[in-house]
């Protein structure tokens, strides 16, 4: 066995910086995807046919093509079309946010539709306007039910974020390969970032459980 973890020691600070580089765009992408996904979900349950049609079409496109293709189109093809020199960071946020919103919108739509119809009727009977009803009455109940599914989506986004290494964004994954080619050993840096990804997902899982427990009003 030819293993020597001491070789990567000088590069550990360089790799660790990748944690923030990854987290930075993952967090923004999750928020962006969640907000856009909520809007899409509301379109999907709307009575306006055009909105419904648009949201369904959007989901079909972003769920029906590979994420890496979407990323490459945004990073390589958009500049060719518009002349705007898009940064790797912005490309990553756009690709992951837009992609994630398609999945999130489906999760939220299902969550909203699973809330008892009586809740809507009770709200209407009290004269509560649609926006308030959604925000204060329906969404909190829907979110509680879909939290595990949402956490799944966030975890998968965190891991899949490694794909940005293909456009040269210096995230964790990219740094591992950089170090690998510097010291001519790949096993050690790859295992090292693997552990870091795993730890990040563990923290996310823990956070999810915490939120779940807090939302667990007596039932």
């Amino acid at each position: 066995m030819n293993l020597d973890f001491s070789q990567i020691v000088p590069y550990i600070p360089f790799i660790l910086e990748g944690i923030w580089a990854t987290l930075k765009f993952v967090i923004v992408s999750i928020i962006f995807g969640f907000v856009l996904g909520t809007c899409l979900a509301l379109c999907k349950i709307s009575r306006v046919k055009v909105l419904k049609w648009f949201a369904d079409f959007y989901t079909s496109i972003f769920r029906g093509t590979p994420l890496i293709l979407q990323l490459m189109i945004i990073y390589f093809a958009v500049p060719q079309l518009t002349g705007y020199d898009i940064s790797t960071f912005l490309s990553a946020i756009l690709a992951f946010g837009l992609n994630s919103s398609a999945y999130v919108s489906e999760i939220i739509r299902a969550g909203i539709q699973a809330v008892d119809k009586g809740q809507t009727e009770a709200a209407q009977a009290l004269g509560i306007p649609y926006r308030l009803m959604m925000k204060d009455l329906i969404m909190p109940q829907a979110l509680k039910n879909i939290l595990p599914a949402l956490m799944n989506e966030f975890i998968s986004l965190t891991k899949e974020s490694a794909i940005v290494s293909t456009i040269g964004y210096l995230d964790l994954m990219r740094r591992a390969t950089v170090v690998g080619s510097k010291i001519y050993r790949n096993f050690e840096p790859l295992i090292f970032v693997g552990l870091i990804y795993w730890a990040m997902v563990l923290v996310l899982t823990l956070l999810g459980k915490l939120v779940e427990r807090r939302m667990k009003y007596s039932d």
Partner: protein
Amino acid sequence: MIKIENLSKTFGKNEVLKNISTTINSGEVVSIIGPSGSGKSTLLRCINLLETPTTGKVLVNDQDITDSKTNINKVREQIGMVFQHFHLFPHMTVLDNLTYAPIKVKGESRQVAEKKARELLSRVGLTEKEGAYPNNLSGGQKQRVAIARALAMEPQLMLFDEPTSALDPEMVKEVLNVMKDLAGSGMTMVIVTHEMGFAKEVADRVLFLDDGVLLEEGKPEEFFHSPRTNRAKDFLEKVL
């Protein structure tokens, strides 16, 4: 106060209400009775537009609520509704269930809304439950909270859609007592119910619906002792 004119409602090909006209006066307690599937609940739900009538008009205080120009939320503030299955907001405490709409819809201050909510809770005998969540209450307690929640909006009219049908038998009375008390206070009430004893005792007028048609309406003593139609006779023989 409520005027229903030539109201019909169809679901697909199924005509559930056929040309119904009646008037409900301020302070009146009206019971709607009839066999299952006769359209009682649908008629009630047309009064606050939870169901949109296919044809005909519903006037609340002379305002046509079927007119698309009417701000239906403003009208609904005046009309409280109590459902068979309570429909309390499960993620809010009892007190928040009562104060949410007055604060958010009517713009009352939290202080005023909570004071009123506590008065209502004591009126329905649930003062000690203000911090509880709906899922920790019994059916009878839930329904009393639901009544208090509707009353918190200070409506002019209360609609009850089979308020005791989902309750365990021993809890029916506590809910009916609250409703009796409410009727005694002069509230205008429309009640869809299978509780004939209650209808007889509390209602000023009974509407008998069968297969979407308003077959009879009249004072409870007349209706229950000498119904005019055979259909009503049949029905009363079965349920009394």
